C-alpha cells in the first residue's frame, strides 16, 4: 500500500498551524510523505514552522492575507511540488470555495467534496437535507425572515428556554441561551453582533433548548468505493463558553442498543449524502436517550485523538488513503472500542476569573510520562502565547483500560504537563474530572455552570507554599555558585530519607 500512496501523494502542504499542523506532520512522517508547512513572520520560533520537510513564510498581516489566503496557499503548494493540501481544522477546512480552487489547480484536497461541505456548512441547509432522509431534528425556526418580531414570535411558539444560534457559526460564537421572553431581544442583538464579527453574517436560527442535554458525536469515515464506516461515539458534554473542554469515549450514557442506533444514524447520514473522508455527526441527547441531529463537521475534529486511542486507528492516515482514492483498509466489524480515553484541552486562561484568556512566555512545557498518554501541543519552551491565535495550548489525551483508570491517568498527567510561565486551566481541569458527578458519568452541557461550587479553587496550603518558598530560596542560593558545583553539593547530601 505504501508505494501506491506515494505514487499519488508524496508531499502534502499542511494549511494550518499549531498542534494540528504537527499532528498531521506526524502521520506524514510515519507514511514517508514529505510535509510542507506555512507560517507568518511572527511564528518563526513555533515548531510547526521548522519541523516539517519544507516551510514557507506567509509574510505578515491579517488572517485574510495569511492562513485564509486561498491564492497564496495554493501557490505555495504548487511551488513546493505538494500533491495534496490538508486543511486541519478551523481556517479553510470547511471552506468549499477553497476546496474547489485546490481541485481546480490540479491538487488533491484532503477532505470531502465542496458539495458535501456546502450542504453541511450551513445549519439551515443541512437540516432541510436531514429531514429528507428522516434524521431526527430539534424543534426550531430556521426561516429567512430575520426580523426581530418574527424571531421573537418563533421563540414563543417553540417555548422557552430557546437557543439563538448563528447560522454560519460554530465553537459557541454567536450563540445565546434565552431563558425568559423578556431577555430575548438583548440576547438576540448580542448574538447577531458576535455572529457578524466572527462570520461576516448575522443570520440566526432559533431552537428548543434541551435542558441537561448530552453532546454525543459520531466519527465517520467514508471512501470513494462506497464504504461508509463509523468509529463510534465521543461524548463532549463538558463545555465552557459553549466550547468543549473535556471529551471522552465511550460515553457512559450509551448502552449497546443506543450506541448501535446513534452510530447507524450517523452512517445513514454519511451514506445518504455520499460523503467522502473524515466527518463528525453531532447529536444532542436528552435524559431519556432521545437524540437529535445537531450538525455535521466536514473535517477532522479537535478531539479526534480519543477515537484513535480507543479504536487503535490513525484517522489522518485514513484521510490520506481516501484522498488518494484507495479503499479503506478495514471493515466495520473490525472496528471496536477498547478501553477508555479522555481528552482535556489545556487553555491559557484563568478559569477562576471568568475564563479570561492569558498571554505570556512559556518557560517550559512538561512531558507526560505514563504509557498511552499523548500531549498534542504546538508550543515548545520559550514560545510566546499571544492574542493572535486561539488560546488552546495543548490537548492531553489519556487512555486507560477503563474509565476510572483513564481518570486517574488524566489527573496524574495534568500535574506533569506544566506550561511554566503562563496561567492555564490545568488545575481547573483536574477539579472537573475529580468531581463526584463526573466520576459517576453525570455529564451534560451545563455541567460547569451547574456544579460551579464543586469547581472552586482549593486554597493552597501553607505546607505547599512552604515547599515553593524552599525552592525559591535554593534557586537564589544556586545563583551564587556554578551549576556543576551545585550538583556536587547535592550529591554530597547525606541521609536523605534514610531508614
Amino acid at each position, binding site marked *: 500500500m505504501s508505494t501506491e500512496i506515494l505514487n499519488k501523494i508524496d508531499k502534502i502542504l499542511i494549511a494550518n498551524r499549531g498542534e494540528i499542523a504537527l499532528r498531521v506532520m506526524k502521520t506524514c512522517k510515519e507514511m514517508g510523505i514529505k510535509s510542507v508547512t506555512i507560517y507568518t513572520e511572527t511564528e518563526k520560533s513555533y515548531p510547526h514552522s521548522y519541523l516539517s520537510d519544507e516551510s514557507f513564510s506567509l509574510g505578515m498581516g491579517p488572517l485574510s492575507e495569511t492562513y485564509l489566503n486561498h491564492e497564496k496557499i495554493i501557490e505555495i503548494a504548487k511551488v513546493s511540488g505538494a500533491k495534496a493540501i490538508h486543511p486541519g481544522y478551523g481556517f479553510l477546512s470547511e471552506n468549499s470555495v477553497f476546496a474547489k480552487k485546490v481541485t481546480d489547480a490540479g491538487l488533491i484536497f484532503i477532505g470531502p467534496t465542496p458539495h458535501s461541505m456546502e450542504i453541511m456548512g450551513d445549519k439551515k441547509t443541512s437540516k432541510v437535507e436531514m429531514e429528507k432522509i428522516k434524521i431526527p431534528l430539534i424543534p426550531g425556526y430556521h426561516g429567512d425572515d430575520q426580523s426581530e418580531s418574527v424571531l421573537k414570535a418563533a421563540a414563543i411558539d417553540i417555548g422557552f428556554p430557546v437557543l439563538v444560534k448563528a447560522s454560519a457559526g460554530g465553537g459557541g460564537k454567536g450563540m445565546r441561551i434565552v431563558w425568559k421572553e423578556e431577555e430575548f431581544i438583548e440576547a438576540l442583538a448580542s448574538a447577531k453582533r458576535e455572529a457578524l464579527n466572527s462570520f461576516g453574517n448575522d443570520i440566526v436560527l432559533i431552537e428548543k433548548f434541551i435542558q441537561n442535554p448530552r453532546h454525543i458525536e459520531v466519527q465517520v469515515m467514508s471512501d470513494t468505493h462506497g464504504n461508509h464506516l463509523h468509529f463510534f461515539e465521543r461524548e463532549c458534554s463538558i463545555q465552557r463558553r459553549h466550547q468543549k473542554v473535556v471529551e471522552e469515549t465511550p460515553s457512559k450514557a450509551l448502552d449497546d442498543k443506543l450506541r448501535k442506533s446513534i452510530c447507524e444514524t450517523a452512517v445513514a447520514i454519511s451514506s445518504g449524502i455520499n460523503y467522502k473522508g473524515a466527518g463528525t455527526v453531532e447529536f444532542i441527547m436528552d435524559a431519556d436517550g432521545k437524540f437529535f441531529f445537531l450538525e455535521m463537521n466536514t473535517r477532522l475534529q479537535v478531539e479526534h485523538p480519543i477515537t484513535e486511542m480507543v479504536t487503535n486507528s490513525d484517522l489522518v492516515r485514513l484521510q490520506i488513503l481516501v484522498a488518494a482514492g484507495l479503499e479503506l483498509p478495514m471493515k466495520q466489524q473490525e472496528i471496536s472500542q477498547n478501553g477508555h480515553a479522555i481528552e482535556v484541552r489545556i487553555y491559557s486562561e484563568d478559569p477562576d476569573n471568568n475564563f479570561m484568556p492569558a498571554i505570556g512566555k512559556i518557560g517550559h512545557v512538561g512531558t507526560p510520562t505514563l504509557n498511552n498518554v499523548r500531549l498534542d501541543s504546538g508550543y515548545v519552551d520559550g514560545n510566546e502565547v499571544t492574542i493572535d491565535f486561539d488560546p488552546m495550548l495543548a490537548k492531553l489525551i489519556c487512555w486507560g483500560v477503563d474509565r476510572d483508570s483513564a481518570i486517574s491517568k488524566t489527573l496524574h498527567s495534568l500535574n506533569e504537563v506544566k506550561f511554566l510561565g503562563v496561567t492555564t486551566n490545568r488545575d481547573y481541569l483536574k477539579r472537573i474530572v475529580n468531581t463526584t458527578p463526573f466520576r459517576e458519568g453525570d455529564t451534560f452541557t451545563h455541567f460547569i455552570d451547574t456544579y460551579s461550587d464543586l469547581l472552586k479553587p482549593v486554597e493552597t496550603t501553607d505546607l*505547599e507554599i512552604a515547599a*515553593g*518558598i524552599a525552592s525559591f530560596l535554593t534557586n*537564589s542560593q544556586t545563583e551564587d555558585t556554578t551549576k556543576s558545583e551545585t550538583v556536587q553539593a547535592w550529591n554530597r*547530601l547525606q541521609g536523605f530519607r534514610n531508614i
Partner: protein
Amino acid sequence: MKKKLIINSKEVEIDLSLNRDGKVEFTFNGKQYSFSNRKVDSVSQYISGDLNALVSSFENNFIVDGREMTIESPLRSRSKSNASSGGHMQSPMPGKILQVLVKVGDVVKEGDSLIVMEAMKMEHTIKANADGTISAIHFSEGQQCAGGVDLVDLSQEEA
C-alpha cells in the same frame, strides 16, 4: 534573618535560619519548616523534608506538585501591585472596545457591567470592582486598547 517575599501578590515575611548546601530552614506563618533540595532538570527540583514534592519554576512562577503559585522578592517584583484595584478597571489584554455601558458621574455597584470589549475573538465584560462613582472613561466604542491599561476610573466613597 527576616526576609520579605511576595506570594500570590501578597507580601509575607519569613524568618530564614539556614540556606546552604541544598538545605533550607525557615519560619513561615508561625511554623518552622525544614527542606532538602535536589536538582532534577533545568526547571525542576525535588524538595524533601516536611513535604516531598517536585517543584518547577520559571521566573516568578512556581508549581508545587501541580499547584501553581507566584513567589518573588519585593525588590524584583514583576507583578503590578493590585492591578485593577483602587478604583481603576484595567483591560486584561489588548483588544477592541465594543460598548461603553456607563458615563462619567454614574453611580455603580460592585459587579455592574461597565464596558464590553473583544479580545481573542471573544467578548469580555469589564465589571466594577467596587461600589463608587465613575470618575473617568478612557476609551470610546470602536477604539483599540492595549493590555493592562486603565479603561474606567471609579471614585470610591470613603468608608
